[in-house]
């Protein structure tokens, strides 16, 4: 096992960090970018495209960079460190990841270039109101209509659903009495498509997306069950979000230690109070354990076994979810009142960590998924998954 970055990876990380620093050196950058449509900095998105970041996970054949999960992880962590609102994990890794993994050659050729060059943003409409995380689509259905397919139902929340130029949609397909999960592509000018845009509490945008006999094209082979590809690409997106969370936790801890060093109370710096510094030490422990797990999950993704990838992502979510809540809560508490204000940076980190946790589906759901299989092996061997 080897956790060292090679020179190219280091260069990529540093370049992304420098680029992001140009806009997001302070929390004002995020505030400005999220204050107006589309909810991120379009100039930044373009520069990320120029740098090749938006094509990282796709093969060169598909117009991408042919990089892998490690490069995705590096970018995600840098985005998390500065809370950049660009929807890398959601649009590139998840929505386009589904196109790359399940789409036909024509679909890839049609959709990916615009995504990679930054002109089109894709969204994945998957969450359904009231459904627990990780369950297959139920309320949005796809039915065959002659040569084509029609979608009906509601997806909500769909991240940047109203800003997206193309929608990937999961739907329930009735296959002779049993349900299958299908993936579809919907054009944003499709009939019967309605998108209602609103802000989320972490400052980005989401939408309620309604389908009423809306024409849709199956992604890849029509009628095939997409559960496996959905699980695998979801695992990739989850691990990317875990890295984004790790980046956010690292900065939350930095802000906290800086505050403890500089802020005075009762005539002395806060770091004089051992009850506070010990809690910062525990935050560091949480951070490093979460980082280790996210890195390992990335390596498992890169190793290529899809079943192992899903389990590794699940473990990463379990660890990240606990660490994110711990660090997010303590970061505010150790700051005191100022940590509650939108003017100061640290609360935004807690806010984003909370949103990531909800999007990942929360710790318990993932722990239960692991618990279901705990009797099937003796020990977890990180080197032989």
């Amino acid at each position: 096992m080897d956790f060292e970055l090679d020179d190219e990876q280091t260069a990529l990380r540093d370049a992304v960090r420098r680029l992001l620093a140009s806009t997001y050196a302070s929390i004002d950058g995020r505030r400005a970018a999220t204050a107006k449509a589309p909810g991120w900095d379009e100039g930044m998105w373009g520069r990320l495209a120029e740098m090749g970041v938006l094509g990282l996970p796709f093969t060169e054949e598909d117009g991408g960079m042919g990089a892998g999960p490690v490069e995705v992880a590096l970018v995600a962590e840098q985005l998390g460190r500065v809370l950049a609102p660009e929807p890398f994990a959601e649009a590139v890794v998840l929505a386009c990841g589904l196109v790359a993994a399940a789409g036909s050659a024509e679909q890839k050729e049609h959709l990916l270039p615009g995504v990679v060059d930054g002109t089109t943003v894709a969204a994945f409409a998957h969450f359904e109101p009231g459904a627990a995380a990780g369950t297959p689509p139920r309320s949005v259905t796809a039915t065959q209509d002659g040569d084509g397919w029609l979608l009906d139902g509601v997806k909500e929340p769909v991240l940047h659903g109203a800003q997206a130029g193309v929608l990937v949609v999961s739907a329930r397909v009735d296959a002779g009495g049993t349900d299958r999960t299908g993936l579809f592509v919907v054009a944003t000018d499709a009939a019967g498509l309605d998108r209602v845009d609103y802000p989320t509490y972490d400052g980005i945008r989401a939408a309620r997306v309604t389908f009423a006999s809306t024409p849709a094209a199956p992604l890849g082979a029509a009628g095939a069950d997409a559960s496996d590809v959905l699980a695998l690409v979801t695992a990739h997106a989850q691990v990317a979000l875990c890295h984004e969370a790790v980046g956010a936790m690292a900065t939350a801890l930095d802000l906290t230690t800086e505050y403890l060093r500089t802020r005075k109370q009762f005539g002395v710096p806060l770091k004089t109070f051992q009850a506070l510094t010990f809690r910062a030490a525990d935050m560091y422990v949480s951070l490093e354990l979460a980082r280790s797990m996210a890195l390992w999950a990335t390596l498992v993704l890169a190793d290529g076994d899809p079943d192992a990838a899903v389990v590794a992502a699940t473990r990463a979510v379990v660890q990240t979810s606990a660490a994110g809540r711990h660090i997010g809560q303590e970061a505010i508490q150790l700051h005191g009142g100022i940590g509650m204000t939108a003017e100061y940076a640290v609360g935004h980190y807690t806010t984003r960590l909370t949103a990531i946790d909800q999007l990942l589906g929360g710790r318990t759901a993932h722990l239960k998924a692991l618990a279901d299989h705990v009797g099937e092996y003796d020990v977890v061997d990180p080197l032989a998954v």
Partner: protein
Amino acid sequence: MRLRLSEADAAFREEMRAFFTTQVPERIRSVVAERRELSKDDIVETQRILNAAGLAVPAWPAEWGGRGWTSLQKHIWHEEMQLANVPAPLAFNTSMVGPVIAAFGSQEQKERFLPATANIDIWWSQGFSEPDAGSDLASLRTAAVRDGDHYVVNGQKTWTTLGQYGDWIFTLVRTDPDAPKKQMGISFLLIDMTSPGLTVRPIKLIDGGQEVNEVFFEDVRVPVANLVGEENKGWTYAKFLLGNERVGVAPVGSTKSVLARAKQLAKDRLDDPFVAARFAELETELLALELTALRVVANSADGKPHPASSVLKLRGTQLQQAVTELLVDLAGPGGVASGADDTSAVPQWARVAAPRYLNYRKASIYGGSNEVQRQIIAGTILGL
């Protein structure tokens, strides 16, 4: 030792329950139940209903509207109010400045302020905290300099909750910068918020709400008649006030109410053993807290906070936060739809879960942080 309430207390409880659930408009109580934000009018309307029925300031001296209730009765009044989702009387008025004026104010101040305070004809704001004095409140720097029969006030207060609605503000100001101990140069001053030179600036919190404010004082002239008690004795009055703030501070009833509603809303999830166990755990922890509150109530001499009230504040806010956390988890990915309107397909409770969770991180910071409470427990109770 006895489990049951006395007949009289049981009847009292029924009376309270009946009043709160029938006399306060359902429209207002549903705002609390749904964890939406109360308007100024909601709070004022409720308090006036309570005040008309003698239920706004029961702990005050009888002369000014108090009821002479036992500690247990006050506890029951408070719990039933919370369980019925009735907005509590404005704490700044009824638990903070009112008791201070009643105890230390001049007869003129009492007559001028107490009836208006009970009936919320004056909305009071609190001007204690300052940007550079967090838990170390006594290091405050806002200065009041005597100039004839006025004080001239300069400085800045912060974390003034609902200060945007404030008519008057009660403040701690430094009147003697040369006092040998910083606690000794502080006075307690009442300031009309329409005074020239006083400005209020909202502070946006991380959940998007604007409930706290900064208050700036630039050469604000305050009549000396608005000094409460003696000059430079303000710290004594502040300690009295903060002690009152801690009594009955455990938000048991409201937390129970939120938890009960969550259970209803998540009814179809209770067959998940982890969800059910989390409810069982929180209910048990809350019961232990409620029982401890009852024990503390029974042992509180009037007005003097039992040191164990720090347990109530510490644990009370922990559980309050734990319940908000449960709702975040139950909401899942749908929870990010916080900005959607009521046409959303995501239920209202799930949409407010995360903003409420974020907002309630304040509970363990304001009003004496949990670190301060641990310090009180370690120092006062354990002698450490």
